[in-house]
């Protein structure tokens, strides 16, 4: 088995992720829905509610809590007593799933990073961006509630890098609160139908998803030649190819078909798909992710 590249220190990896995140503007996730269950966050909902930012004064009505009367504003008026209302603020909660299956540990010839490392980097960078934007982030499958702030980032980093989570190649079927956002980072070298089934569960709860398919260049190009026995690291399949160069074209067509099927099936589950190769700069992967999460960010993000 090919050795994994040097595992950077955890803190160092977070620094790398933060540095990557710095190069993009704070990510603002479009909150499509407002739901009561969503904890108050930094995004004004353009209506009154529980929040910390002043929204409007309105005349006191019977039934209002006396404590909500803004005496200073009321003193300036001779007729009314005003109640101070704040804007209802709600934070989006984003659930990030990072594939930890053995197939992610693959690194093709001439590539510096394996898929796993790249996926973790992207997940972490995304988390940094989101938390800086005030969102709450949780690692799907870690069993924790989403959290924001410095503490949330610490926890997310710990969950992501310390592992111990599920190593399934499919996102886990954890019930998520409604209107959360789901981010899936994986190579998606699975049966598209099985993936659709998992994602559909979340979609049914109104959760939109973004999927980033992360592939090693050799997985895309099939640059090998000669007689090769290909073995799936997860032990699901073996393929003995007599002359790899002869099947290269057909393999690429099959891979393209797989991709299209993925895209199609994910779209049915309100999930968009972007592609990223590990030989591309990580920033382009992060950009793809932010674009999917916040279509408005597309123009501003800029390339790395």
């Amino acid at each position, binding site marked *: 088995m090919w050795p994994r590249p040097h595992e950077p220190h955890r803190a160092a990896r977070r620094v790398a992720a933060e540095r990557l995140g710095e190069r993009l503007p704070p990510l603002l996730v479009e909150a499509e829905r407002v739901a009561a269950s969503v904890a108050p966050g930094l995004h004004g909902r353009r209506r009154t509610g529980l929040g910390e930012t002043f929204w409007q004064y309105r005349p006191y009505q019977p039934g209002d809590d006396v404590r909500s009367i803004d005496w200073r504003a009321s003193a300036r008026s001779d007729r009314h007593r005003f109640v101070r209302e704040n804007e209802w603020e709600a934070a989006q909660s984003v659930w990030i799933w990072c594939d930890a299956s053995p197939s992610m540990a693959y690194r093709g010839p001439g590539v510096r990073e394996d898929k796993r490392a790249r996926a973790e980097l992207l997940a972490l960078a995304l988390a940094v961006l989101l938390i800086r934007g005030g969102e709450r982030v949780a690692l799907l499958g870690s069993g924790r509630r989403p959290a924001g702030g410095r503490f949330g980032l610490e926890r997310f980093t710990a969950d992501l890098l310390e592992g111990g989570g599920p190593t399934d190649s499919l996102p886990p079927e954890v019930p998520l609160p409604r209107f959360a956002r789901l981010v899936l980072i994986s190579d998606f070298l699975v049966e598209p139908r099985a993936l659709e089934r998992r994602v559909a569960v979340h979609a049914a709860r109104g959760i939109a998803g973004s999927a980033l398919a992360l592939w090693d260049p*050799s997985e895309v190009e099939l640059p090998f030649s000669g007689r090769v026995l290909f073995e799936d690291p997860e032990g699901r399949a073996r*393929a003995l190819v*007599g002359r790899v160069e002869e099947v290269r074209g057909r393999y690429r067509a099959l*891979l393209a078909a*797989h991709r299209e099927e993925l895209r199609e099936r994910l779209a049915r589950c309100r999930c968009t798909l972007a592609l990223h190769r590990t030989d591309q700069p990580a920033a382009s992967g992060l950009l793809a992710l932010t674009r999917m999460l916040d279509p408005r960010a597309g123009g501003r993000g800029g390339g790395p």
Partner: protein
Amino acid sequence: MSAWLPLGFAQPWLLLGLLALPAVWWLLRITPPAPMRRPFPPAAILARLASREDTPAHTPLWLLLLRMAILALLVLAASGPVWNPQPLLAGAETVVLVVDDGFETAADWSARLRTLEALLARADREGREAVLVTTAPARAGIRIVRGRPARLRALARELAPRPWPADRRATARALAGLEIGDAEVHWLLSPWTVPGEGAEAVAELAARLRRLGPLTVYRPGGPPPVWLVPPAEPGVPRVRAERAVAGPAATVTAVAFGPEGEGLARVTLAFAEGERVAEAALDLPLEMRNRIARLELAGIPGAASVVLFDERWRRRVVGLFGARAGGEDQPLLSDLHYVARALAPWAEIRRGDLDRLLAGPVSVMVLADVGRLPEAEVARLRTWIERGGVVLRFAGPRLAAGGDALLPVRLRRGERTLGAALTWSRPLAFAPFPEDGPFAGLAVDPQVRVRRQVLAEPSPELAAHTLAALEDGTPVVTGRRLGRGWLLLVHTTANPTWSDLALSRMFLDMLRRVLDLAAGSGGPVRGPLVADRILDGFGRLRPAPAGLAPVEAAARGRRPVGPDFPPGLWRPAGREGAAAVAVNLQDTVRTLLPALPRNADRVRGLVAEVERPLAPWLFAAALLLALVDLAASLRLRGLLPAGTATVVLVLVLSGPSAAGAQPLPDPAVLAAETRFAWVRTGIPEVDRKSEAGLRGLSLILALRTAVEPADPVGVDPARDELALFPLLYWPVPPEHPDLAPGTLERVQRYLDRGGMILFDTGDAGLLLPGESGGGPGERRFRELFGELDLPPLEPVPSDHALTRAFYLLRDFPGRFIGLPLWVDRPRPGVNDGVSSVLIGGHDWAGAWAIDELGEPLFPVVPGGEHQREMARRFGVNLAMYALTGNYKTDQVHVPAILERLGQ
């Protein structure tokens, strides 16, 4: 053993293994090579493809062929192939090997040895016992060694031809006592015999050998033996070679060498078709002739191809002086005519008055019937004799009338007449010569009669001075040593008037003996001789082995050479410094007769080439190919990157050759110490000599001067950085290879920037005496370096810094002398006025060269060790000049500077 290839197999049936090759081919074809295993996450996608993609993966054809080649090589190697197989042995338990190793076998000795080696190797392989017999006697007799072939092989490698003839009769006698059961006999024959042995001896030995077992005779295929005939006359006017039987036209080259091994002359002897004898005149001045110490046939090894010379061949100058010397109109009555005619082949004759004769280099002075010499001349002659001259006087009427003081004995006045009309006595013949006189051993011609003679005054010591007497005891030749010379008197005339002596052969012999008395020859050689250096079977002079018994000098020319009397240089016992006496094989062996035994069971030729087992080579090739196969397999399976595979292959394939080239060490290492460099010519012996020479010079420098150079290095001027070396030694032998392109520019740059090169053509060793340039090395130098931009050259001027850089030198000898050393004229302002190129031909490296123990490797001629010392001094000066430039020239101005300071 096939008819069209000299190839045989020890186990031919193993070749049947080759039949299995097609089956292996088939097996290899259907067994694909192990695939390369590769983890690949999208394997599932590929699996969909692979199920459809079911083309069987074949081993690539080239790999298949490679493996078949390996297999075929292994099968071939296992079957024990032998190149040049020799169908040598029959089936007997004991193999008797008889090797003729007489002197005539030296020419084809290597073939003889190869045959012997092949026979022993075969006997060794087959586990026989062997008996090795050499037919030329050693000192302990005929050598018969019996033992395991492996032991005899070591012995056989030490065998060498003997410088004396074989003795087949003694061999047959020695074999008579040999008890051998089941034997086969192989006789490496020399089909020649000396007259003393005769063809019967050969036949006798053959018969004896056949009684031991079936006899196979190996006869050489080369031309008949050729030998040099020692010239009869001194001075070697003609060179003569003979061959055993007449044959087609052929030429041989005879080379004459001086006492120091220097080549003096070279003459080509052409055997006409059908002729046994070839002769040619040797065109050399007398002084050169007298230097000849050795004559040999070039390229034909053997004791018979060499003639050693001693004093007998020195041509001496004889001065003739007689009262009636001018009687040219009646030569037969002249006193000196007979002497002159008798001595002409042996000596240079000069005539004239005493003054003129004594002024030149004369060894023997003949005075015929000179009566009374003036006192002054007697005194002059006496001192001349005391310094080593020989005076031979003949009697005659004038001497009878009254002699002077220059006589060995006192004479009675008048003469004695024998057998005249009025006397009773008859003319008398000579009595046998006394054994201790200079004429000892000469045969007395009974027909020589003395009719008249002068008589010596009887005295007690007369007998001691009598060198020859008549039958009645009357002294007829008397002599006396004076100082280092001799005074001799023949009591009769030098012409036939008083006796027949002058008409006889005995007269010639006696005159020659008188010549032997002359200075330098040390007188006639008498008493025991001890071996000084002896010839080996190949005609090289070797130190004499210990324990050779002294041999009476008189045996020379009569006793056949043999183990107890080997040819070579012998020295009179107990007389240090006495001239050596040459004993040649040809003194007693004058011809060879063909002798081929008729009763051999089989006759074969000598083995042209040794049989060589090929199995090791085939195994090595198979191993090499297996390595290639391994690398290729690894490569196919992806376990070896392409680059590594190529590197491994290149290393494997080029291993031996890569080891041969020695790249220079790191320049930083080289530059850390002062060292000199020599230029690699690619000719191994030249390079070895250069290396040893510069090592020797470095040692001398370290011992004598403050310069302690590091080990010299060999450089390739086309490739290596020259700027690291203050001095390059560049030998330019005639066979120097062409320069690589660009070399000349590099050399030019090196010279322009202050480098110094000593070009050594080594011509002085190739030129004949008298030539002073235009040698082959010089011509080659012109071809190679003609385009080098050199300033004008001049012979080293006497005030050049080279002559005083360390030692004061006048000339610059190397291993040889005689050529000028050319140097570029220093140009003011260029290189600080230091010459950059020195060109000469004295083979300096040869003089400097030392071996590992510090001993000189090459002799230095003609000056010996003194000249070597001078060559070393030149080397020291050269190194100093290279290192300090014109520093010593500055010293020239010291007096002027001091003078100025004083003011």
